[in-house]
C-alpha cells in the first residue's frame, strides 16, 4: 500500500506541479535543505489522522505534494493591512529550512491565518484553493473554447471529438434542468447555469485527483456560488414573486402576517442550503477517502492498507458519481429558484 501510494502520489502531482510551475512561478521556491528523514520518523511516531485529513481538506498558503525536496509549491501571499498597505511575498518566507513556521517581516502565520502585530490582516493570497480555482477556470476555458471551435469547424456537420462529448451534457442541462424549471425565457440564464454546472463538475472531479486541492468542498467557494445565485434570483424576481413573499395571495389576513417572516427567511435559506449541500457532500467524501487511507497508517498494517485501498477505490467511484450529482443538483436548484422568481403567473 505504502509503496503504491507513494509512487502514485509522486507521479501524478509531479505533472500537475510541472504544469503550474510556470503560472505560479512567483511562489515557486523550494526547500533548500533536506532534513526530512528525522522529521518523517517523528511524524510517523505521532501520526494524527484528523490533522492529516484536515490538512488535505482545508485551504493553505503552500501546496504540499510530498515530503522532501521540491515537494512543496510555495504560493504567493497577498495581504492588506491599514498599517502596511498591500504587500506581496512568497509564502516560503514563513518557513525555515526545517519547514518550521517562522515570523516574517512582522507577519505571523498561525493556523492558516496571517497576523500583523496580533491583529488579522486582510488576506487575498493565492492560496492552494485559489491556485486550484485558476486551474479549474483555465481548464474550463480551454475545454469549452475547444468545444466552441468544434461548432465553428463542423458547422452543419455531425459533432466530432470533444464537441460530441460535451454536446449531450449541454443539451441535457438545457432540456432536463433549465428549460423545465425556468420556462420559455430560459435563454437569459442559460450561460450562467452552464458555467455553474461545469465549474462545479470540473471542480469536483479535479478535487478527486490525488494531490489537488478541495476547491468545491470549500465553504467560501460554495458560498460565493450560492450568493451569486441568490443575487440573480432576487434581481430577476418579478411582481408575482415579491407579491408572494410579502402578501401571499389566497391566504387569510392573519396568516399572511405569520407567513411573511417565513417567506423572508425562505429567501435566505435557499442560498444557505445550496452552500452547505455542496460543501458537505464534497468535503465529506474527501474526509471518508482520507480516513480510509489513514487506517493503513494508524494500524501500521499492509493487510489493512490493502483492504482499505479496495474500499477507497469503491468510494472513489461513488465520489465520481457524487461529483456529477452535486453539479446537477446545484444547477437544478438554481434553475428552480430562478424559475420560481420569474414565473409568469401565480400557482396558488
Amino acid at each position, binding site marked *: 500500500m505504502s509503496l503504491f501510494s507513494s509512487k502514485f502520489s509522486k507521479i501524478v502531482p509531479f505533472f500537475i506541479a510541472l504544469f503550474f510551475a510556470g503560472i505560479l512561478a512567483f511562489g515557486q521556491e523550494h526547500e533548500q535543505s533536506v532534513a526530512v528523514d528525522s522529521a518523517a520518523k517523528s511524524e510517523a511516531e505521532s501520526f494524527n489522522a484528523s490533522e492529516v485529513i484536515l490538512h488535505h481538506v482545508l485551504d493553505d498558503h503552500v501546496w504540499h505534494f510530498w515530503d522532501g525536496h521540491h515537494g512543496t509549491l510555495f504560493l504567493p501571499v497577498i495581504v492588506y493591512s491599514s498599517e502596511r498597505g498591500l504587500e506581496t511575498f512568497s509564502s516560503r518566507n514563513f518557513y525555515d529550512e526545517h519547514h518550521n513556521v517562522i515570523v516574517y517581516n512582522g507577519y505571523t502565520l498561525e*493556523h*492558516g491565518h496571517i497576523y500583523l502585530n496580533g491583529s488579522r490582516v486582510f488576506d487575498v493570497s493565492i*492560496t492552494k484553493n485559489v491556485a486550484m480555482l485558476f486551474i479549474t477556470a483555465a481548464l474550463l476555458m480551454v475545454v*469549452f473554447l475547444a468545444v466552441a471551435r468544434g461548432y465553428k469547424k463542423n458547422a452543419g456537420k455531425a459533432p466530432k471529438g470533444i464537441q460530441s462529448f460535451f454536446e449531450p451534457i449541454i443539451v441535457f442541462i438545457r432540456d432536463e434542468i433549465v428549460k423545465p424549471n425556468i420556462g420559455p425565457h430560459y435563454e437569459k440564464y442559460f450561460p450562467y447555469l452552464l*458555467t455553474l454546472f461545469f465549474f462545479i463538475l470540473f471542480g469536483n472531479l479535479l478535487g478527486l485527483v490525488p494531490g489537488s486541492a478541495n476547491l468545491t468542498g470549500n*465553504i467560501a467557494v460554495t458560498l*460565493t456560488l450560492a450568493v*451569486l445565485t441568490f443575487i440573480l434570483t432576487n434581481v430577476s424576481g418579478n411582481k408575482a414573486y415579491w407579491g408572494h413573499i410579502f402578501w401571499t395571495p389566497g391566504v387569510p389576513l392573519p396568516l399572511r402576517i405569520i407567513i411573511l417572516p417565513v417567506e423572508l427567511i425562505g429567501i435566505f435559506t435557499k442560498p444557505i442550503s445550496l452552500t452547505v449541500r455542496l460543501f458537505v457532500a464534497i468535503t465529506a467524501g474527501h474526509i471518508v477517502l482520507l480516513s480510509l487511507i489513514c487506517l493503513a497508517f494508524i494500524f501500521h498494517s499492509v493487510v489493512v492498507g490493502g483492504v482499505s485501498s479496495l474500499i477507497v477505490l469503491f468510494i472513489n467511484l461513488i465520489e465520481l458519481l457524487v461529483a456529477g450529482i452535486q453539479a446537477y443538483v446545484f444547477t437544478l436548484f438554481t434553475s428552480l429558484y430562478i424559475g420560481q422568481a420569474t414565473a409568469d403567473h401565480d400557482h396558488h
Partner: protein
Amino acid sequence: MDLLIPGEGLIIWQLIVFVALVFLLSKLAWKPIINSLKEREESIQNALNTAERARAEMAQLKSDNEKLLKEAREERDKMLKEAREVANRMKDEAQTDAKKAADKILAEARAAINVEKEAAMRDVKAQVALFSLEVAEKLMKKNLSSDKEQKNLVEGYIKDLKLN
C-alpha cells in the same frame, strides 16, 4: 484555515474568477455553442418537416393514381359490358330477322305448294272423273250384257248407298 468559516481571500478570488468565467465563456463558448445547437435543431426540424410534407405528397399522389386507375378500370368494365350488350342485341336481332325471313319464305312456299296441290288435285279429279267415265263405259259395255249382272250392279249401288 477553518473548515466552516469562509475565507475572505478565497471569496474575493472566487467571485472575480467565476464572474469573469461566466462572461468569457458566455461570449466565447456558450453563445456559439447554443446558437449552433439551435441552428442544427432547426435545420433538422426543417428537414423532418420537408420529409413529412414530401411523404404526404407522395401518399396523395399515390392515392390519386389509385383513384385514376380505379376509375379507368371501371370505365373499361363499363365499356366492355356495353359492347357485350350491343353485340348480344345485334345477334338477337339478326337471329329474329333471319327467323322471320325463313318463316316468310316457308309460308310462301307452303302457300305456293298448296296452290299447286289444289291445281294438281283439280287436274287429278278431272282426269279421274274422265277415267272413271271411260272405265264405267267400258264396264257397262262389257258387264251389263246379262240381267243378273245388272241386278248385281243395282244391288251393289244400293249397298253403297246404305253405307253412305
